């Protein structure tokens, strides 16, 4: 397979979604809207707690940083699922999969679009937090890049699993695209340490890369230490979850070729 043609096919799918965003300002606005609103709410909450909570006061901005990092996972998963759903809503899957686009290239294009959607959605909110609340997530320094990568990949893994479910069950499973990722929220220690969870739930939490990121973030803010051990475990878990997500999707794709779902799927 020629690499240049494979890259051109991936670029074609990315271009297709960029055309769609360019032609629809509500789609573009939606990307920025929710992360920004969430950041504003947590910004005011932080301002209040700074004077009423000794824990928050010890590490200024911990809640704003947490919400911005959580938005990365959220937007990453939505980014994968949304790009896929756009094809289903437009009844375009049949055309895509009789073209030379391979399933792997298609997955890579979904991931590329997810990265674009995350940057487009979260970056403005992160920048806006600086003049509004005088907190810059970029003050985390290089660890921010590591956290970003881990969270992005975990969102991808979840997104691929959701797409696999929709391919398998049709648009009846569409709502999972918007809610599935929230199962991670209570057990990832976004706003509180994993130690507050019941013992058995802590075991579950430590099997998620997201938990290592949020604990790692607090280590940077409270102890001024970057936990390399957390990063390595998180990366290993990421590799496992993205592998599972990709396998689920390829398996569902093959199933869809058995059932003819690729021809029939649509609104």
């Amino acid at each position, binding site marked *: 397979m020629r690499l240049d043609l494979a890259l051109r096919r991936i*670029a074609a799918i990315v271009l297709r979604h960029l055309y769609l965003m360019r032609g629809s300002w509500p789609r573009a606005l939606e990307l920025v809207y929710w992360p920004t609103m969430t950041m504003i709410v947590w910004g005011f909450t932080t301002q209040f707690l700074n004077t009423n909570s000794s824990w928050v006061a010890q590490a200024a901005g911990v809640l704003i940083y947490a919400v911005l990092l959580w938005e990365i996972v959220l937007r990453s998963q939505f980014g994968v699922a949304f790009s896929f759903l756009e094809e289903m809503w437009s009844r375009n899957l049949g055309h895509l999969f009789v073209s030379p686009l391979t399933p792997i290239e298609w997955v890579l294009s979904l991931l590329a679009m997810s990265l674009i959607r995350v940057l487009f959605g979260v970056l403005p909110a992160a920048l806006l937090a600086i003049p509004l609340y005088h907190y810059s997530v970029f003050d985390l320094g290089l660890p921010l890049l590591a956290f970003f990568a881990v969270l992005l990949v975990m969102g991808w893994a979840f997104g691929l699993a959701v797409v696999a479910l929709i391919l398998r069950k049709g648009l009846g499973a569409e709502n999972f695209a918007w809610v599935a990722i929230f199962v991670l929220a209570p057990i990832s220690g976004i706003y509180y340490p994993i130690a507050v969870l019941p013992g058995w739930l802590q075991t579950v939490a430590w099997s998620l890369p997201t938990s290592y990121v949020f604990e790692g973030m607090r280590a940077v803010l409270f102890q001024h230490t970057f936990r390399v051990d957390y990063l390595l475990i998180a990366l290993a878990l990421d590799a496992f979850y993205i592998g599972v997500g990709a396998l689920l999707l390829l398996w569902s794709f093959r199933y869809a070729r058995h059932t003819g779902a690729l021809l029939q799927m649509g609104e």
Partner: protein
Amino acid sequence: MSDVVIAVAGLTKRFGDTVAVEGLNFSVTRGTTAALLGGNGAGKTTTLAMLLGLLLPTAGEVHVLGADMRHHRHRVLPRMNFSSPYIDLPHRLTVRENLRVYGMLYGVPRLDLRIALLARDLQLEAFIDRRVGSLSAGQRTRVALAKALVNEPELLLLDEPTASLDPDTGDWVRGYLETYRTRTGASILMASHNMGEVERLCSDVLMMRQGHIVDRGSPQLLIDRYGRETLEEVFLDIARGTRRERAAQ
């Protein structure tokens, strides 16, 4: 280079207990236009989907342009294309944007030039920068045809290419397909239940009923065999399983 572009042997597809097609055997020769002709539910679209590798057969083999479509379809997909009124192009993209995206997917060189040529030949210029969703049915059909021809395919698979078109537009599309085949030497396989279209375009007709090929031949041969005046009468004989069909067998 082999003269056979499509070779199908023992092709069967079942969905649970339902038999969609069973034991199909046929081939299509380079440079010809063939038709799968049959009523609703005869198995035409299912057969096309298996030829494209979009649907996996329960049994049997499909070779297209020499490739086994179950395992190696990506080797030949750049050399073929497909159009169906039942699969849309993204409505919110303009005609030009759609052709650019599909041109890139098919690895078309000098894409801007190719799009300009298609726009001229298929008379898309007046609405090439309009969204596909805002076009009339006839305009959309021409856009779908442009997408199907963007890579100048050696093999074109068409599912009911003139369904829901007015007679004038339908005639125009048929004329264009004839010209395209003559100019490029491409092969065309279409699924249709439009008898006039099949009589005009096709040199070989595969008559399908309930998932089986029940007869085949040129339109004139079938008309003669059934002692009828038109292919439509032959179709009705086959669809209804009349005595003429049994006698012809």
